[in-house]
């Protein structure tokens, strides 16, 4: 276990170094600069030049990179150009928003996706299978921003049950938080349900066709017991892998959903940073997302051993 963790941490550091290098390179390949984005069309070249100097954009690229790495290694993600605050502060402020949204969405995706997939496998080639899999395909095909707008029209505009957007922090008002997060979380989660359901069905089908299931059947164990006690734990490894991927996708998908529902999360921060070429925020944001992805992967790997004792982490 210890050697596994050491190896994972070492590889994570390497991945983060590569991600930050690539994000730096990509960002600096993007045309346009912060000074031009910040000023309007009637700005004088002198104003643009003065702003570029003030922002340090006129320094040589290797120097800017060296400064950036130096700061990051000492735990400082730098200062946002436009927000007048630290990048770390801006990210941490929005982290609870995006995390609560993505976690809620993930819970919905798992709660609906796994049972639907298992039921489809159990009733293989019968009507529940066809119903769940057609619905899953439909869910996978629907763009989340469109689904979001439909949800708003139905539940906020027509029925008036839920707010159309905005965000209330859980700490301020738990009920208010639930009301603001439920529509975007369902929008995000529903699109992923199909993904999880299809994988759960395939994995479950494979498990149900194995010898030990046949033996359990022969022993006269109940169908439900076989599915839940023998089938599901054995089918969980591929499902967990997909859940890990979905968790990452939810963080990415939140970028668009946060725009549609006007939610002040990390997604909106990054979109805003792209539009205004606020490079420190963009670099910090990408690095931060990479860390989150790595953590999710690590958690999934650890869970493999939990659900299947045959997996050895050493």
């Amino acid at each position, binding site marked *: 276990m210890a050697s596994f963790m050491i190896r994972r941490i070492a590889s994570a550091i390497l991945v983060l170094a590569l991600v930050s290098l690539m994000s730096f390179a990509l960002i600096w390949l993007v045309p346009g600069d912060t000074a031009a984005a910040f000023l309007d069309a009637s700005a004088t070249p002198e104003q643009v030049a003065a702003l570029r100097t003030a922002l340090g954009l006129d320094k040589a690229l290797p120097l800017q990179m060296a400064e950036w790495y130096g700061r990051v290694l000492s735990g400082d993600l730098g200062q946002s150009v436009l927000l007048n605050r630290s990048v770390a502060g801006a990210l941490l402020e929005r982290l609870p928003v995006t995390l609560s949204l993505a976690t809620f969405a993930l819970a919905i995706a798992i709660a609906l996706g796994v049972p639907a997939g298992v039921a489809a496998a159990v009733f293989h080639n019968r009507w529940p299978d066809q119903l769940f899999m057609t619905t899953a395909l439909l869910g996978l095909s629907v763009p989340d921003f469109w689904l979001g707008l439909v949800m*708003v029209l139905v539940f906020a505009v027509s029925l008036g049950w839920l707010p159309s957007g905005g965000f209330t922090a859980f700490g301020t008002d738990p009920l208010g938080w639930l009301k603001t997060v439920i529509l975007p979380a369902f929008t995000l989660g529903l699109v992923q349900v199909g993904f999880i359901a299809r994988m759960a069905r395939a994995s479950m089908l494979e498990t149900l066709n194995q010898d030990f299931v046949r033996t359990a059947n022969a022993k006269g164990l109940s169908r439900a017991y076989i599915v839940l006690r023998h089938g599901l734990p054995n089918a969980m490894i591929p499902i967990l892998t997909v859940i890990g991927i979905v968790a990452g996708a939810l963080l990415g998908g939140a970028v668009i959903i946060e725009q549609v*529902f006007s939610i002040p999360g990390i997604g909106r921060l990054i979109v805003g940073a792209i539009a205004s070429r606020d490079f420190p925020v963009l670099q910090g944001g990408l690095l931060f997302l990479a860390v989150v992805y790595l953590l999710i992967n690590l958690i999934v790997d650890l869970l493999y051993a939990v659900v299947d004792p045959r997996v050895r982490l050493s």
Partner: protein
Amino acid sequence: MKKHSILGHALAAIMLLSMQAGASAQQKGGDVVIGISQAPPSLDAQITSAQASRNVTLHVFETLYARDENAKPVPELAEGVTISPDGKTYVFPIRKGVKFHNGKELDANDVVASLERYRKIGASLALVSAIDSIKATGPHEVTITLKQVQATFLDNLSSPRAPLAIYPASEAAKEAGKIEIIGTGPYKFVEYKPDSHVKLARFDGYVPNPNGTGRDGFAGKKEAFLDTVTFRFMPEGGARTAALESGQIQFNETADGPTAKRLGSDPRFSIHKVVPFGLQVIKFNHAEAPGNDKNFRLAVQAALNMDDIMSIAYSDINQMDPSWLYPGAPFYSTAGAAKYNKADLAEAKALLAKSSYKGGKTTFIVDNLRANVDTATVLQERLKEIGITVDISIADWPTVSKIGFTPQGWTFWTHGFGIEPFEGPASVMAPWVNGLSQQAKDPVIDELAASLGSEMDEAKRKALFERFQTHMYDNAVAMKAGNYGVFQISTAKLKNFKPYRIPRMWGVWLER
């Protein structure tokens, strides 16, 4: 019996009248949430010229002079001004008894510190470039000395572009973006949640300008009735509409034509047209062929049908107008109009034949705003008819503006001028001085702009602006396509709203 009946009728009439009066009476209280499309980059009013910031900061901060309904500068925190005979010294008596939101009373030191700060870090330094010195010459008197005569000085002081907001001296000592948001305006700052909202509350200690008789542009009498005003940042147009329909917001800063039409027939909403909000300009790059050829530019100008451009780019809300200023502006002129919107392909072909353009591609750089892309597309189709090939290059604003600020890589560039024509002739001319926008110096414009700056006689200044406008058309320095507007939609309960360049939340109240 008869007596009773008369009395009864009279009473009923009085009751009815009082009910009607009650229905339209101003009343304090209520909260309004405004959906705005962009988040303000900063609430430090002096350091940003973003519309999103103006929407908020002009409720919080005030200036020495402000623009009235027709964009004329009138005193706001100043009582007036005395200008020395040589036109270089301005003495401003400052209004007494004006309170900042922190309770401090406004005095000359606050004004001096605020203007000095603007001279260092203001977003439109050109507004204060003529100032030589700013001194407190009394507890409530400020004297500004100019290096040279500047006829537009009061226009500059009152510009809402990046306002010369007056802060308490203690705040004015701080760096850009580090201030506490404390002004003298009718609303005080409550909170700013990044990517979410800015909340303001009525400032009950507000001291209105005694000379103001009613709502008047950014000046006049600013009576706040609402308890709070919240600006919520909602980039998605559909989300703003949904929020308005579901009662989450009470005001949508900008909506598209079809939405305005649909909600216009719903008694729960009021549609407000802000026309003109901007003018659509199509720039030429004079530093590169073929944009450096006057006949080429004139050919393009002659060929274009501006009606087509505006009706597609800004369907439902546009105005055909040759002037580079807005209707109603003191210097409004139609000089040069004969060359506007000619849509004459024969003349265009003749002019093109005289030019050095012998085929080849031209590049139209355009940002991804739909109306700008439409403008480029209509121009591209039109110019095809006279044999000019236009490549449209679309990118986001930072990319496009970076190219457009240089003399290479583009022939045409389009975007709106919103605040410049509102500010007046000097601001409209400024983007063409020193070849700033067209990338090659134009001595005629440079001279006209310099003369306008030093000419104190209004009739002569008007003549100078007319010469500028004629020059723009005679040389096709750049083209104006037309004026565009925006639709604003509010709940019908918001009473006495009058559209202006920002959604002013003074003089309005909520009907219960």
